[in-house]
């Protein structure tokens, strides 16, 4: 199942050019994704996790500019010309947060699926219909023919998200990026969709990049986790280690803020302060202003990532002495 790194993000920086100025959404992010693993990117809204996902799936908004490199099977995706990029679209597929806006409201689900299949595999319309039906069965949608003929507004959120997963899988991808696929759904549907993604990952031998703000979901789905804060990956490691033994003070706070069903009721902690202004982020640790370990002689120079064990990295000044 394993086979070395499939996808490597190196020093990725993404800036949005907006009216209010240049928003530095992702700064110097590096991430290594191995073939067949499932990795979670956790962070609060505005941490740049979705932007990272969009960059990997080659679908950054038009006012975003990316620097650095995203190496997929030895090819730098950021250096591709539009024609070559088209070839890689679908290799890395994506499921989006809001199923209601994922499909064009004027076309049936079937029309979307057929178009994807036709262009990806150069098959006839009839063949595409057969495959589309098969895909819908695979995402456990009953009555596939009805779903194929349905318009997006005729389906429930859960059904739409299943259809969206079918569409994402229609390209026969190696990597699936799931950007908060359960956030807009109600709780029971959430767990069904999570279960489905887990099953499909196993069946199809997918490499999964799961983006979420929910640590609970992260622990359920992924074996590895990267924590993002204000555009920076602050900590990375196996999910169990990150959750049980968080190194970065931000991760520690995040873990404490998760309500637990097993422990006795206690006050949920929250993190005081606000995200820094991403138009003008601090040069040093982005979390410094909210961190309890910050002292008045704090060093504001950029923080380096520190290896803290096998597959374990953290970007915090507290550990810079551990192993330099």
């Amino acid at each position, binding site marked *: 199942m394993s086979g070395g790194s499939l996808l490597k993000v190196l020093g990725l920086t993404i800036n949005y050019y907006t*009216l209010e100025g240049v928003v530095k959404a992702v700064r110097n992010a590096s991430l290594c994704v191995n073939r067949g693993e499932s990795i979670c990117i956790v962070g609060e809204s505005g941490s740049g996790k979705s932007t990272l996902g969009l960059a990997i799936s080659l679908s950054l908004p*038009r*006012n975003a500019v990316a620097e650095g490199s995203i190496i997929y099977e030895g090819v730098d995706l950021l250096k591709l010309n539009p024609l070559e990029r088209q070839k890689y679209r679908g290799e890395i597929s994506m499921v989006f947060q809001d199923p209601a806006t994922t499909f064009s409201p004027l076309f049936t689900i079937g029309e979307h699926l057929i178009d994807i299949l036709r262009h990806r595999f150069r098959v006839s319309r009839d063949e595409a219909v057969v495959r589309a039906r098969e895909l819908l069965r695979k995402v456990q949608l009953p009555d596939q023919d009805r779903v194929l003929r349905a318009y997006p507004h005729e389906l429930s959120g859960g059904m739409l998200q299943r259809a969206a997963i079918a569409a994402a899988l229609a390209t026969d991808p190696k990597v699936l990026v799931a950007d908060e696929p359960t956030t807009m759904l109600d709780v029971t549907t959430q767990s069904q969709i999570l279960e489905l993604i887990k099953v499909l990952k196993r069946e199809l031998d997918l490499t999964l990049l799961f983006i979420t703000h929910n640590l609970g979901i992260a622990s359920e789905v992924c074996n590895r986790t990267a924590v993002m804060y204000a555009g920076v990956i602050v900590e990375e490691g196996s999910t169990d280690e990150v959750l049980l033994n968080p190194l970065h003070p931000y991760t520690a706070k995040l873990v404490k803020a998760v309500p637990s069903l097993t422990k006795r009721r206690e006050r949920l902690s929250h993190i005081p302060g606000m995200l820094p202004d991403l138009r003008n982020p601090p040069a040093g640790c982005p979390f410094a202003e909210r961190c309890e370990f910050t002292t008045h002689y704090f060093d504001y120079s950029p923080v380096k990532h520190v290896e803290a064990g096998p597959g374990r990295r953290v970007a915090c000044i507290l550990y810079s002495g551990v192993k330099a």
Partner: protein
Amino acid sequence: MIAMFKQYLNAMRRNPMGLIGLIIVSSFVVMGLLAPYILTRPEDAWGLTYDVGKRFKPPSLEHLFGTDECGRDVFNRVLLGTRFSLMVGVGVVALSLAIGIPIGLAAGYVGGKLGTALMRVTDMFLAFPPLLLAIALAATFGRGLFNTMLALSLSWWPWYSRLIYIQASSVKSMPFVDAAKVVGLSELRIMFRHVLPNVLTPVITQATLDIGSAILEASALSFLGIGVPPPIPEWGLLVSSGWQTVSRAWWISFFPGLFIVVTVLGFNLLGDVVKELMDPRLRNLMAMRRMRL
């Protein structure tokens, strides 16, 4: 407020068309305000003179825009016309707001049967093609400055009441309205003191930008002879006054029309920028250099 203003200035800098619009609009407003004091031939401007010897003189240094069929200086008349055209534009919009806001607010906030009935009436007015109802009303009321404004605003208000209606029906369910109810404020007080201020900004912005279109429509009424009566030098009327002699004295119609075009253009250019600023989805796009398609 200051932040918003700064944002506008910032947007203007990025978007030269908006800046041009702003310059045009503000200079015409200044011109309209100062017009009576900077006229070189006030009697001509007010239409009080008649000089046979000076009829139909083409543009020259003495008469920048030439003279009309009564020997009056067209430049002075057009200049004073700025005041009347802007006045009609502002008047139409203000009257429309005065009708549209209460109706939209009542329909949106009270809702129910009353709301449906009010919006049905609004739809009825919107079922007329633009300007047509105004033409019929202006013909009924007869010529006159106020009649023109009234006729236009009676066909114009449904746009505002609809805008207010949409806003008010969404504001209605916000917590602060419930809070006001719990405190025991009267419905009327909640409607005007708490709901209205929250729905006013977009409609006032829209209305300000609509002044240009109001000027355009008022000039059409005047051209058809059912708007502002002579000798008021409203631009549409000035164009109409040179209509029959246009092939030998083009300047009488040409210059007032040009002033209409430039003024309305100013409002429209300004409007485009403001609308892009108010629409968050368009905002981020504005900074974009070019779509990569």
